[in-house]
C-alpha cells in the first residue's frame, strides 16, 4: 500500500489511533477502510475493536493480553508489508432513498442552519436532498456519517450538545451529515427526521448498508410520516 505517511497515536492505556491523514480525502478514507478489513483478517491477539472512520482507525486492545509496544510494532510492520490493500469491499455502492420531515419539532436546529447559511429554508432542504451522497462510516448504534450537502459554509456543532435527540434524526455538522437511528445525545444540528425503520437486531448484520453505500434524502410533509412508519430500510433500497 502506498501509505508513506501514517501515524500510530496513543489514546490512553488500551487504545491507539492509526491516522493516515489530518484531512478527510477520498484516498485516506479508502486506505483506512481497506486497512481495517485487512487487519481484522489478521486476528491479532488482544485486539478487541477495529473501528475505521474517516482518516483513522481506532484499535482497542486488552492490556492484560497484549503489550502496547508489541502491538504497535505488529501494526506498523503489517502496514509496511501489505503491498496492495484496496477497499473494494467497502465500495459496495448500494443505493437507498430515505424520506425526511424537515424542521419544526422534527428538526429543531433547522432555523439555526438556515440563518447560518444565509439562504432560505427551501434552498437548504433542496440542496440537502440534491442527489446521492456516500456513507463514510458507522456511528452510534448502526447510525452513519456521510458526506455533507453542498453548502457554502461549514456548520458548527452545538456549543452545548443536546442531551436527547430522537431516534431517526438527520443531523448536520461541519461538512457532514449524520443519521442516527436511536435516541441519544448529540452535538450535531438536528434538521429533520426519517420515519423508516432501519435496524433489525434479530438479523445479522443488523442494518444492510455499509460505508461505501449511497443515500439520497427526499423531503416529505409531517402528515406523510405515517405512511413510511411501517417501512423498513430494505424497501428503500434502489435497484436499477
Amino acid at each position: 500500500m502506498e501509505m508513506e505517511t501514517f501515524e500510530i497515536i496513543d489514546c490512553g492505556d488500551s487504545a491507539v489511533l492509526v491516522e493516515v491523514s489530518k484531512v478527510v480525502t477520498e484516498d485516506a478514507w479508502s486506505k483506512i477502510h481497506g486497512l481495517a478489513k485487512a487487519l481484522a483478517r489478521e486476528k491479532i491477539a488482544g485486539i478487541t475493536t477495529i473501528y475505521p472512520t474517516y482518516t483513522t482507525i481506532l484499535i482497542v486492545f486488552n492490556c492484560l493480553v497484549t503489550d502496547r509496544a508489541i502491538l504497535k510494532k505488529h501494526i506498523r510492520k503489517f502496514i509496511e508489508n501489505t503491498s496492495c490493500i484496496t477497499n473494494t469491499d467497502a465500495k459496495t455502492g448500494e443505493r437507498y432513498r430515505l424520506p425526511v420531515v424537515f424542521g419544526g419539532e422534527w428538526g429543531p436546529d433547522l432555523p439555526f442552519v438556515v440563518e447560518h447559511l444565509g439562504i432560505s429554508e427551501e434552498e437548504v432542504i433542496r440542496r440537502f436532498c440534491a442527489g446521492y451522497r456516500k456513507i463514510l462510516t458507522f456511528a452510534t448504534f448502526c447510525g452513519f456519517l456521510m458526506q455533507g450537502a453542498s453548502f457554502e459554509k461549514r456548520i458548527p456543532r452545538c456549543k452545548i450538545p443536546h442531551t436527547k435527540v430522537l431516534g431517526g434524526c438527520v443531523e448536520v455538522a461541519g461538512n457532514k451529515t449524520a443519521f442516527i437511528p436511536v435516541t441519544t445525545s448529540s452535538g450535531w444540528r438536528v434538521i429533520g427526521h426519517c420515519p423508516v425503520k432501519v435496524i433489525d437486531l434479530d438479523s445479522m448484520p443488523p442494518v444492510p448498508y455499509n460505508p461505501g453505500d449511497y443515500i439520497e434524502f427526499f423531503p416529505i410533509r409531517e402528515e406523510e410520516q405515517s405512511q413510511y412508519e411501517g417501512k423498513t430500510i430494505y424497501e428503500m433500497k434502489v435497484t436499477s
Partner: protein
Amino acid sequence: MDEYLIVKIAGFSSLQDLGRKTYMSYGISSNGALDTYSYLLGNELVGNSYPQASIEITAFDFMMSSTTDIPICITGAPADLAIEGNPISSEQRVVLPAGKMLSVKKIRDGLRVYIAIGREIDVPQRLGSCSFDAVGMLGERLRNGHKLRLKESKIYYKQICGSPWSIDVCDGCDVDTFRDYLEQFYGTTYTVSTDSNNVGIRLGGKPIVGHKPTEVVSRGVAVGSIQIVPSGNPIILFKGRGGTAGYPIIGVVASADFDLVGQMRPGDEVHFRRISLAEAVKKYKEKFGPLKLASFIK
C-alpha cells in the same frame, strides 16, 4: 496471627495437587490427586484462580476444623458431610466457620473425597508439588492433630469510593492542543453534572477556552476519553458512547479507574491526576490481574 487448619481425625488422608510433571525421565512419577476431575472441580468451585493443595481423603472418616472462617468445597465419592452435625452439600462452595468441626464420614460407592480449600496451604513443594509419594517419601500423610498453616489471604485491590474522587488520566490523542491548559485541567476540581449517564459524564468547573482547534475530524474514541466541548466543559465519554467524536480529547481515563467513574454520583467533586501509560497499565494489571474472570473483559 497465623491461621491453621487443624486435622482432628486424619483417617487415611494426604495433601494433593496435580502432581509432578517433568521428572519421569529420572523415574520419578507424577503422583497427585488420583481423581483429577474431582480435585480440579473443587478448586474451581471454591474460587481458586489456580489449583491449590487439597485434602484427599481415602476410604476412612475424616474430621477437621479451622482457626478462621474458610471457604471449602467437597467433591469426589458420596459421603456424609456435615459441619457440627449439620449436613452440607458437596460440589458447592461452603464456608467452614472458625472453630466448627467438619466431618466426612461413610465414604461409599467410590473411594476418595476431596476438600478444596479457598486459601493456599503453607506446605513444602518438592519437585514442584506437595503431593504424597510413598516411594520417594515426598510429601506426607496427614496425622491426627496435624496443623496446616494457611498463607495470608490474597490481597485484592481495595477500591475506595467517595467524593472528592481522584481519577487517573493518560494523555489523549489531542494532548498537544491542550499543552497550555493541562495545568488548569489537572488543577481544577470539577463537579459531576446531573446530565450524566452511561454515554457521557458531564463535568462542571472552570471552563477550558481559547484552545485551537475546538473541533477535529471525527474519529473513533476509546472509552474514558475526556473531550472538551466548545463551552469549555469536559465530558467523559463512557461505555455507551457513540463511537465517533469530533471534539478534541485532552486525556483518557486510565482503565483501572473506569470503575470509579462508574461510581461517581451527580454533585460529587472530582479532580484528575496525569499519569504515564506505563503507570496506567501497571495499575490495571495490579487491579485486574488477580481476577481470573478479567480475561472475559471485552
